[in-house]
């Protein structure tokens, strides 16, 4: 019987992002993790301490790999329509599930989610030159569209309404 083989931690964490982002925290067992990550059970515990430890590592990786590029592209967004399109087309599955499932029961997850969404708010505020509260409202609308779909193209309706306002050098934001 050999020692547990070494595993590629980067690769394992990326696989965990996919699993947790697709099936949620409670839907992923340690058996699932062992089966999909190429990690021996003992190595998993030794490296991450617990399923929660791995989840936190995966969530942070998700934010670094998937949220950071969104923030960079948001910086160049010319209008509300572009902001809504960028946020709703980003791969934010694990972040959304974390917000709904784990943030209410896990303070560390809640902090990660809060920080991530605040970064989106800031990127929008900087790109469009709108106040922080309006940027947060746009983030909230985009997340709502992500959760709900885009019934009757509400994204376009919102963008038309808001862009006509921002087009006037946004006097109404004050």
């Amino acid at each position, binding site marked *: 019987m050999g020692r547990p083989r070494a595993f590629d931690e980067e690769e394992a964490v990326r696989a965990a992002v996919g699993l947790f982002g697709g099936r949620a925290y409670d839907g992923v*067992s*340690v058996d699932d993790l062992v089966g999909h990550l190429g990690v021996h*059970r*003992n190595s998993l515990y030794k490296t991450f*301490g*617990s*399923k*929660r430890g791995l989840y936190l590592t995966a969530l942070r990786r998700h934010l670094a790999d998937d949220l950071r590029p969104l923030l960079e592209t948001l910086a160049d967004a010319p209008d509300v329509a572009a902001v809504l399109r960028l946020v709703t087309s980003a791969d934010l599955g694990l972040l959304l599930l974390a917000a709904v499932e784990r943030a209410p029961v*896990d303070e560390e997850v809640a902090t990660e989610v809060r920080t991530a969404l605040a970064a989106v708010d800031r990127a929008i505020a900087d790109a469009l030159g709108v106040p922080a509260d309006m940027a947060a409202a746009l983030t909230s609308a985009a997340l709502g569209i992500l959760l709900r779909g885009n019934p009757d193209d509400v994204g376009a309706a919102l963008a038309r309404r808001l862009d006509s306002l921002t087009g006037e050098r946004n006097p109404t934001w004050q």
Partner: protein
Amino acid sequence: MAVIRIDGDDLVVMMEGLDKLWAFKGSLTIPLANVRGVTADPGMAAEPKGMRAPGSHVPGVIIAGTFHQHGEKVFWDVRDPAKAVVVELADERYTRLVLQVEDPRATVALVESALS
């Protein structure tokens, strides 16, 4: 069956009933600082366990006692795999504990809230 409770800055494992015969004289106290995490893991019982330390008596259906594998020392006390939790430790005599508890989810929630 084990009962895990939090006592100040310690995690205390109490063995119930006959289990205390083969388990660290009935209870084990570990500083929370040395607890890396706890996980409900029904699949753990199917893992290879390594060499049993001398002295632990294990009748058939129960996995109990101290096991050595790959330089790790693991304490087991599991009869019903569905109720197993894995407690990962640092700087302790045991690398990890695999224990049967009444309510794994509640145990995980209890320890995680104490750790945060």
